[in-house]
């Protein structure tokens, strides 16, 4: 019922800078920039930040988009690693594309460099390996215009799994359930997180996380609170928490909104090695944020974030894997000493399993009713098998990786680790 096209020619449409950091993304970068340039919006610019890639990403982009190095005055409001050059296209068709080449400093540092150069009051941070749908910007910007009593400081959209999907000129033309089992597990995991958890948090204005793959931010607040923190691998969550803290401390009534529409499709890890690295990083990022902002915990000055969201993240996002592991060890111990009450354990496990399966199935049902992205019955049935297996295969692994993440954090490990891309499937020839 909502007509987003009304924004395309409206003087009310605020300008948006799209920031996409890229590090060794040679395989997918051209397709992804095409998708960014195809965004439907009236007043936007695209800024690609090459974070000191070691592959030929920059050369590819220079060649494809006829870029030339230009003089550019930048008012560095947030400090970043040195910028080696700023490129604009000789072709007028790409006049809203800017490429920054800078020394490697990580994703947060790249985004800060993009913020410094951006012209508009709002910016979108996206992963360049993700594909955003053409009308993502009007959907993301609507809460900024529709706000009634509070200032919207950030909005985020749902992220979906794009492995095995077909891409043509930067557009997703065919959506498929991934062929890889690990990617399939992540399809249901993403559906559950984005279609149940975040909607609820957004309703009570308790969101503490906007996915790094796609988020729209109020640049003014971001700059005032110092930009992205490059001392953490969970910079997306840390920024949202810091923005909200800033808003609470300066008594700015605010909201962080979430849009459940699948606005962004991303390639998820399809090998255990990469997946393990990603989960390890997520745990460390989560711990960093919780540690940096420990003063929020049960502090009524920070409203619902301090009283509900932060304790939730502490108990259910950080502590749960540890408690789960302790629980499992305790059961094993009880079995060894012969004190286990088998019928009770069986019934309890059955209830927990049933609940877990039902929750995931509900998320898939919600997807089927509202967005209906998977066309074939076979695909849907296939997806419904995944929740039955998930508690036995994928969930124990995520618990294990989370504990490893805790250990890595305590050892003081930093860094992202490599995320190898396979690239999207090309469009099939007719």
């Amino acid at each position, binding site marked *: 019922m909502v007509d987003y096209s009304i924004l395309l020619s*409206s003087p009310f449409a605020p300008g948006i800078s799209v920031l996409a950091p890229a590090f060794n993304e040679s395989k997918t970068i051209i397709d992804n920039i095409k998708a960014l340039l195809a965004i439907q919006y009236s007043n936007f610019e695209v800024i690609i930040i090459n974070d000191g890639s070691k592959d030929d990403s920059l050369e590819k982009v220079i060649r494809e988009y006829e870029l030339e190095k230009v003089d550019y005055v930048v008012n560095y409001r947030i400090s970043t690693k040195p910028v080696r050059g700023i490129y604009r296209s000789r072709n007028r068709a790409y006049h809203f594309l800017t490429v920054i080449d800078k020394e490697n400093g990580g994703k947060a540092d790249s985004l800060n460099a993009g913020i410094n150069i951006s012209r508009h009051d709002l910016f979108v941070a996206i992963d360049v390996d993700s594909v955003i749908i053409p009308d993502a910007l009007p959907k993301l910007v609507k809460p900024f215009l529709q706000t009634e009593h509070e200032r919207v400081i950030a909005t985020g959209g749902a992220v979906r799994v794009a492995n095995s999907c077909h891409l043509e000129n930067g557009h997703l033309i065919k959506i498929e359930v991934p062929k890889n089992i690990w990617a399939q597990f992540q399809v249901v995991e993403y559906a559950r997180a984005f279609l149940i958890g975040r909607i609820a948090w957004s309703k009570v204005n308790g969101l503490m996380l906007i996915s790094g793959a796609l988020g729209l931010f109020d640049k003014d607040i971001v700059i005032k609170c110092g930009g992205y923190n490059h001392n953490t691998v969970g910079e997306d969550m840390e920024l949202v928490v810091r923005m909200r803290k800033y808003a609470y401390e300066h008594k700015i009534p605010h909201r962080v909104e979430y849009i459940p529409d699948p606005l962004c499709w991303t390639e998820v890890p399809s090998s255990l090695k990469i997946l393990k690295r990603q989960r390890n990083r997520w745990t460390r990022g989560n711990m960093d944020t919780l540690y940096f902002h420990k003063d929020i915990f049960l502090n009524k000055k920070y409203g619902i974030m301090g009283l509900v969201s932060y304790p939730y993240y502490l108990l259910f996002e950080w502590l749960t894997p540890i408690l789960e592991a302790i629980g499992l060890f305790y059961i094993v111990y009880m079995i060894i000493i012969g004190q286990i009450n088998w019928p009770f354990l069986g019934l309890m496990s059955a209830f927990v399993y049933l609940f877990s399966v039902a929750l995931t199935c509900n998320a898939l049902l919600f997807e089927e009713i509202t967005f209906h992205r998977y066309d074939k019955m076979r695909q849907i049935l296939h997806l419904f098998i995944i929740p039955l297996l998930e508690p036995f295969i994928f969930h124990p692994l995520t618990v294990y990786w989370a504990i490893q993440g805790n250990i890595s954090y305590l050892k003081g490990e930093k860094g992202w680790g490599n995320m190898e891309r396979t690239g999207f499937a090309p469009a099939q020839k007719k």
Partner: protein
Amino acid sequence: MITHRRMMFVVYLATFVLLIALMIRIDDWLTSPLVADAPGWVVSVHSICTQFIFQSVDLRQESNMLFRFLFPLIIIMAILSCISIGLLLLVVVNMRLFSQLKIRRYNYYTNKAQKYILQYIDNGNEVAVSELKRIPPKIVTDQIILLFNSIIGKKALLLKKLFYELNCHKFVLSRAGSFLWCNRLRYLPVASAMQITEAKEYARKTIDCYMPLVRNEAEMAYFNLEGDHSMEFLRGFTRVLSEWHQLHFYNLMVRKSIPPPDFSTFFQEKNASVVAFALHMTRLFRQKENGLLVIPYLQHKNESVRKQAILALRDLEVKEAIPDLIDLYNREESRLKVEIIRVLGFLRTDDAMEFLISEMATTDVLIRIEILRSLDYSHRSLLLNNIDNFEGLEEIVKHVSDNRIA
């Protein structure tokens, strides 16, 4: 006043109370024997659950308050889980299999409706009217409105005539006044497009709806159905008129060439969002005669009102406002400071230039860039002749004109 937040709170509270009531009821049911004539499946469920409680009888006795609620809760979760999985399968099967039948039926009637509507507007075929009367009114209405929104002129008038001849207006009216918000959301815009004036009353009642989406459609319909398009409903308006709603009004006025009312009549409203809207529209429709009336709103306590006042003074070229703008500049936060500089650079009176020259002494690079950016070539030269050189000035000046500056 009912607001979205209050509604949500009531729903959460009601759900919570219901859950507790259900837990107590289930606990009673589990701890008491079943009636003799209970169905077999009830006996089985009761037996499994009682067995579950029996296994934990020690724990229950030790800490009965906690376990008294925990076990019924788990059982409720299990029941809800089973129900949801069952429903899920039903819905998916329905959507995937039976919906095909529905779609086929819908397509059949849609094609038929399109065929007869085209026959009617091409040659006024009366047979088409009788055929259209046999098609469900919802489909006919949808098809007429779809076509009506994309054509203009004589054929659009014919479509409107057909709409009334088929009594679609009665169908639309019944839906626009429906208790269900989804019907109002869908049919108020139709009533508005087809100028069903009887729907104005329904639109007026819906204007106070707590759901912004429904309220927006009602506001638009009411405005469009008003004979004089005076936006009278904004007087004493208690809800917030968000920018999203404002842009719809603007779009409607431009698209339908509706003459805008005198927006200065809303300047006195208590509702800040209405005042901001009035200022914004005064600017967009260039109501220059209201220029001087805008100046007092530079002192308004609401930031968005002040911002709209600053922008309106620029676009209406109100040079009399310059002393007030300079006065406001020192009290304003950085975002509005930039807007004030843009206005002063655009108006370029002697006072404004003098102020901008003095502000170039500031160390804030952003302000310096904005000052240089806001001036045209000749005034920029004038300013540069009157300021001291500073590090980076040459580079800033060089790139202000080619826009390679951030």
